[in-house]
């Protein structure tokens, strides 16, 4: 490397300068979010593949699910994201009480969403859905759903649901520590980034799995 090159590299990477103009915590959080998004990208591409190669027509989701109920779940998650955004800004402005209250409202939204998902899972399992396909003679089998349908449903919503659960754990810790005055504003922001990501993934699952016509 020539001397001029070394000087130029030092000027940008020699310490004290961030190429992303963000703290290392935020940069690492974004890198984590990108990697996690790639997981869901692979899952959604796999779902698309399974849907394309299905030997029987993909069922209309309106025949299997209550779309108004799924729309309500979407409403709850979007609303919880709004509370989370408010919490992040309140923390940045130093209003930690408002931040904590909005994190608590976000947690309530997450719990309602999880409750709805548990109800939806129990309902479809009751109708005969299993990870490997529909049970013979079940209501779903009568609808003629391909085995890929329940598999995709359980994998996509299961992975998303696990992210909601981990998001709730992070939010409960954040709310508790904020009450104790131990969470810096940046802590609320990191929790918020994760929660918004969970909301973002749902936007894709909601459209690609529930709304796309067969």
């Amino acid at each position, binding site marked *: 490397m020539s001397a001029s090159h070394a000087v130029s590299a030092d000027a940008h990477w020699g310490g004290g300068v961030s190429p992303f103009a963000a703290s290392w915590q935020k940069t690492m959080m974004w890198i984590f979010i990108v990697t996690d998004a790639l997981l869901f990208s692979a899952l*959604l591409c796999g779902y698309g593949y399974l849907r*394309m190669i299905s030997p029987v027509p993909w069922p209309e989701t309106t025949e299997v699910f209550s779309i108004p109920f799924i729309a309500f779940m979407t*409403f709850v998650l979007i609303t919880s994201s*709004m509370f989370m*955004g408010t919490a992040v*800004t*309140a923390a940045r402005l130093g209003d930690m009480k408002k931040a904590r209250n909005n994190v608590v409202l976000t947690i309530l939204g997450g719990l309602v969403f999880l409750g709805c998902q548990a109800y939806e899972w129990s309902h479809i399992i009751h109708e005969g859905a299993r990870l490997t396909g529909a049970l013979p003679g079940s209501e779903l089998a009568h609808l003629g759903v391909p085995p890929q349908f329940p598999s995709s449903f359980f994998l996509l919503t299961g992975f998303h649901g696990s992210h909601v659960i981990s998001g709730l754990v992070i939010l409960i810790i954040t709310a508790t520590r904020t009450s104790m005055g131990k969470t810096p504003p940046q802590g609320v922001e990191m929790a918020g980034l994760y929660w918004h990501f969970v909301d*973002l993934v749902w936007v894709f699952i909601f459209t690609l799995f529930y709304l796309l*016509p067969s």
Partner: protein
Amino acid sequence: MSENASNPYKIYTTTWIALLIITVAMLAAEKFHMPRWFLVLFLLAFMMVKAIMIGGNFMHLRYEHSRIAFMVFVGILVTSLILFAFLTPEAASVLAKTPR
């Protein structure tokens, strides 16, 4: 960060309302009996609009350095397109061999 100084929380309520309106429009779209290709295009376009609104306004990506936004969008988009590009011809070949 250059958010609205008079009411810094306004962006969240306006984004929330916009997201709800878009969601209702997406749900109502199938009632209009439009051609399938148009409905799919409509749903995918609004899905992307919603994703950009959540990323930009809720996750504050619009206020971050452009390198972070570049890393996020290009990283996810390119990888997804590569996956899709490899899987689609494979699916087509499987379909061609599947008796219907």
